[in-house]
């Protein structure tokens, strides 16, 4: 009797509670709500900074795996030619770096702007990682690797050929190198890299020939003047990188 009563009470409770039952939204609606709310979840400032750093490194690492063979070959030739000319043939290390140093960078620019020049940019602009990030990552690889090769050559020349002085490094390497890459980057931004690279290489060759043929006393120009030119070239590079960051280097930025 008491069990029957209990069951009856239980059913009453269930009936009473069922009046308050609500229907759950379907999976898609829940997903949409989460997506909509996601936009309003604030990101921690500290986390944002930390997030950015490895992303650029990650992109650069990934892009390095996709650089063309021509780029790696240019770097290898640059190193071999420098060592052969100076260490084995006893050539002038300064002239060697004057002519050879920018070559891998100039060749590398073909890879940097490959997506724009091969019509992939429209697609890449729709991807998660912005196209400017990809371009800057590639530019980072080209620049960093080129710099590393140059430093290696400098070290070898310093130890096995001629001691390197800071002033000579500025005149024969830093100034022509930064000027040349600033000019080549400018041409690549304004036109296609396939045009910029040969023009820059031709210019470099002419300057190199002129430096080896004519006995010009570059040291006659005072140190601060060289420094000023170097800083101006660096500033031009800074402006160009900013130009890339703002995405002003392709037809879709209009």
């Amino acid at each position, binding site marked *: 009797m008491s069990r029957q009563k209990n069951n009856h009470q239980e059913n009453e409770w269930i009936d009473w509670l069922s009046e308050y039952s609500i229907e759950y939204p379907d999976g898609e609606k829940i997903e949409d709500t989460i997506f*909509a709310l996601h936009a309003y979840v604030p990101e921690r400032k500290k986390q944002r900074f930390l997030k950015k750093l490895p992303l650029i490194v990650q992109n650069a690492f*990934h892009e390095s795996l996709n650089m063309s063979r021509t780029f790696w070959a240019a770097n290898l030739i640059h190193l071999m030619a420098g060592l052969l000319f100076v260490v084995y043939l006893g050539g002038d290390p300064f002239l060697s770096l004057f002519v050879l140093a920018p070559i891998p960078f100039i060749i590398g620019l073909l890879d940097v702007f490959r997506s724009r020049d*091969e019509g*992939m940019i*429209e*697609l890449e*602009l*729709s*991807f998660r990682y912005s196209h400017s990030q990809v371009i800057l990552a590639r530019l980072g690889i080209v620049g960093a690797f080129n710099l590393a090769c140059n430093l290696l050559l400098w070290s070898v020349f310093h130890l096995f050929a001629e001691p390197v002085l800071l002033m000579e490094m500025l005149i024969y390497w830093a100034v022509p190198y930064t000027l040349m890459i600033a000019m080549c980057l400018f041409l690549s931004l304004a036109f296609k890299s396939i045009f910029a690279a040969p023009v820059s290489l031709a210019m470099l060759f002419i300057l190199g020939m002129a430096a080896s043929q004519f006995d010009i006393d570059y040291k006659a120009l005072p140190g601060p003047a060289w420094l000023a030119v170097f800083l101006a070239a660096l500033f031009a590079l800074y402006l160009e990188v900013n130009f890339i960051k703002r995405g002003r280097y392709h037809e879709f930025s209009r």
Partner: protein
Amino acid sequence: MNLAVEQLTKRFGGHVAANEITGEFTKGVYGILGANGSGKTTLMRMLATVAHPTSGTISFNGVDIYELGDRYRDVIGYLPQHIGLYKNFTAEKFLLYIAALKGLDKRAAAVKVDELLELVGLAHVRKKKVGTFSGGMKQRIGIAQALLNDPRILIVDEPTSGLDPKERIRFRNLLSSISGERIVLLSTHIVSDIEFIAKEILILKEGRLIHKRSPRDLLETISGKVWLVQAAEHDLHQYQSHYKVGNIVRNEKGAELRIISDIPPSPTAKKAVPNLEDLYLHYFEEDLDAAAAQV
């Protein structure tokens, strides 16, 4: 799931490529129909965040897509009209590279690439360089890259232009089979691409959205305006200069003409059931004339 555009406008100097376009999209295939220069590509580019609108808004589930940023780009797949592929990459390497740019995890990307190469029928040429692919194969690798991130919004701009009929049918079937749980926006000027798969058709003309309706409703707008006329050979020119003639079928009595006209073009004209080609002709006849004049 809802994608909405509101008063969307894009200007290039004095030229208005898209003019105050307003509309809403939910799950299903939307065909965007228009002649060359009607603003289809501009609209698609804005939806894919490739081009920024001059004014107006695009929102996904009520949030502006520029506020969403990469969270929006995570849910879209885009196939532009002219896809330039890295010719020296193999099909597999190309897809893995795109997967990385889309932010996919390496292992998940490898699985997805396998799956998509199978889906688009390119698994057997996965190690071949994409530079050696035919137009149809390039389009298929294009759709595969668009699907890598399992997008909720798929934007495909004139995907069948330049394909032969067999490839077009194959592509249409592929698109239809993957459209289930997504918003698919497909722009084209080829009517048969969307005739049987579109939930709604948007008609764009000179940058303006002039219709956004189901194919049946659109056909209703020209119901009673399509006629079949049996004409003698010497009358053909007269009919062509006075009416929009969609089709001419030669027969032993002369020719049977398919004419779009508000009034019967002849007392013997018989009403015909309209199709989307008639609709296209109805809206874009002057564009066809311009194209013919260019040829």
